[in-house]
């Protein structure tokens, strides 16, 4: 079974659902640790309002193999885990990818994912993990501090301070936090992450949106009103300033939800994809909006498509 859905009422309940789904699809689950092949993640309910995810090279949960940061799906001060939320779980192999989308209050969405990249080249590593909300491990996070929805659709820096809400797309660079991580030894590091500026000035990060700006920005097409499912192609900036194309998470795509509703299934040849908003769909603000702009925060029509094989 490569797809499952249900409802949960707690963070721990969602962790349990993911663990059960992973087991069915051939992953090894040992306590809060989930692994398959070269993918090792630690997924746990840190509190009633927060799930965290973290990776480790080779399943060694100590430095230097452990990622020194984690991503999280959480409800910060002023918010709490919803009384009932619907989850959608997806698994695809070649390479292994497990994805979870959570929906509550009808219009709100969050996501967790992990797996192995489709790598370009023969570099060592490739496992990745992501969660909608993010923070530095052991960093200066304060409840209610800004965690941003990021929108780099045209290469310019613009963030959406969501207060306690902290939605973001995978590998969509953040203002202060990091939400996506890749085990990648190309530069001598072990774990690379999306970075602060997502531009040439940030020499320590994996880049996605600005490098492939045109493919994100031009959708949907004027010629046929079709939105393009755009791979999250990842680029690592080397210390000499040049960029290395390293690969992509194979079974997810960036999508603009124009002419589509959350949860719609798109069929392209033999492939099927389910589409969901990044956080909150707002057709009137295509590129999203932050609270300080005078309206409720949203992620516009930015969204995610997940390979769907029921």
């Amino acid at each position, binding site marked *: 079974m490569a797809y499952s859905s249900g409802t949960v009422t707690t963070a721990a309940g969602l962790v349990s659902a993911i663990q059960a789904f992973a087991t069915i699809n051939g992953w090894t689950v040992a306590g809060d640790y989930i692994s398959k092949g070269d993918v090792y993640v630690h997924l746990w309910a840190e509190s009633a309002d927060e799930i965290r995810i973290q990776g480790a090279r080779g399943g060694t949960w100590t430095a230097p193999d452990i990622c020194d940061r984690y991503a999280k799906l959480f409800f910060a001060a002023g918010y709490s885990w919803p009384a009932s939320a619907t989850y959608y779980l997806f698994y695809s192999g070649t390479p292994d990818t497990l994805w979870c989308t959570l929906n509550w209050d009808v219009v709100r969405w969050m996501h967790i994912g992990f797996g192995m990249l489709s790598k*370009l*080249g*023969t*570099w060592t590593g490739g496992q990745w993990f992501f969660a909608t909300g993010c923070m530095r491990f052991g960093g200066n996070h304060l409840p209610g501090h800004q965690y941003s929805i990021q929108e780099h659709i*045209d*290469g*310019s820096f613009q963030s959406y301070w969501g207060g306690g809400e902290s939605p973001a797309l995978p590998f969509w660079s953040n203002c202060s936090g990091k939400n996506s991580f890749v085990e990648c030894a*190309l530069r001598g590091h072990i774990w690379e992450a999306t970075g602060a500026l997502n*531009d*040439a000035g940030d020499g320590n990060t994996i*880049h996605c949106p*600005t*490098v*492939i*700006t*045109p*493919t994100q*920005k*031009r*959708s949907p*097409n*004027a*010629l*046929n009103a*079709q939105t*393009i499912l755009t791979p999250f192609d990842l*680029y*690592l*900036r*080397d210390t*000499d*300033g*040049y*960029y*290395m*194309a*390293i690969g992509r998470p194979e079974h997810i795509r960036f999508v603009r939800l124009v002419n589509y509703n959350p949860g719609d299934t798109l069929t392209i040849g033999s492939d099927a994809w389910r589409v969901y908003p990044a956080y909150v769909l707002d057709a009137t603000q295509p590129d999203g909006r932050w609270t300080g702009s005078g309206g409720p925060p949203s992620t516009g029509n930015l969204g995610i498509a997940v390979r769907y094989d029921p």
Partner: protein
Amino acid sequence: MSDFSAGTATGYLDLLGKLVTFLSSTLTPSGERWTVLRYTGVDSITSSSYRTDYEDWMAIKGPYAMHSGGSWRTAVGSHANCWLALHLVTALDVRRITITGPATTTMAPKDFSLDYSADGVSWTTLQSWTGQTFTASQVREFAVTATSPGAQSYWRLYITSNNGHVDTTSITTIGLPVWQTTADFDHARLASAWLKAPGLTGTDPAYINIACYSRPSSDYYNWAITGGSGFVEAYNFDNQPGCVAALGLPLWNSSIPYWFAADGQHLAVSVRIDGAGFAAWAGKMLPFATPSQYPYPLVIAAPFATALGEKYSSSNGDLPYRGNTGRLKLRKLDGTWAQPWTWPWWQDPSNYSSSKLFKDTGGDYPLLPITLYDANNLFGILQNVRYVPGFNQAIQNMIEVGSEDWIVFNYGSLSGMEDWYAQRYV
């Protein structure tokens, strides 16, 4: 499914012949082979003698090879018993010829014959004319009333005497017109091909036309490439339906290593000329749209934005895949032609100054799809060619991607970070 061919042509005319053979005869699968709507013209023009600046090739006119004002003149004192011979790439049953006389009427042919040959060595006279005169630059047509010998590859105009000039005999233009329903079509031109790709379903064709053009005295020997939406026998080259004004691929008339990649809807060509690299692409791209939404996404790309009368070393040439120039044209839905941007060369036109330059990934060279787009559309990608980083790159590097082999080329003699591309080889 794509097929590939590589080898060495003897020159720009031979290269076209090899491409036509590949597309129409050896391309696999056979269901994707192209139809040769018309492949005609000459691959050699010879004469008994000629003067400098009045070479025999000047008697052939055609699109982009007009040689305006030029004419063939025999060498001094060789004005009698002189000849001008054409070797056609496709045998032709000649029933009419046209001769444009020189400005000096005494140089015009007076007594002459039309000869044919199967081998260019043994000639047979088909018909003779005597006592012919021309006014200055007059175009005269001569009907061939003799019994047809059938289609022949070699034709010769053998001139016994002219109209009194004691120095030279001259012809401004020789023509081999054939009536095509509504108009004449002249086969006296440099080798040219009108091709129809069947499309991947066999019912969605693409029309591509390629014509050789040259001017030996200016040392250029090129291809003009265009594409349109149909083929009309009576029409010439880039006035075929829906055609874009031809782009130019600079070549030369010497040994040309070449690499072809093609399927039932496109072709990609890479060549090496005098140690420099050149590329062209023609056919339907892979659009981000269904066939009903974007039925004819035709692309024509070549280093010269027009069929320039310049040689391969011209500074007007560039790698066509860079996009946002007249060197890459895309047929839009309404039949007009656009000059799309291409990613990753143009990462964002509004923010080009901060475009990212790519390098190898730990010693591997990822091949990035060449994606065509504009301000409001993401059109699609070009098949069998890819962007490849120029970082520590070398010409004809081979890159293995699964079962595919790709070969790396630069443009011209450039070696910058973004002067490279890869074309699929196997």
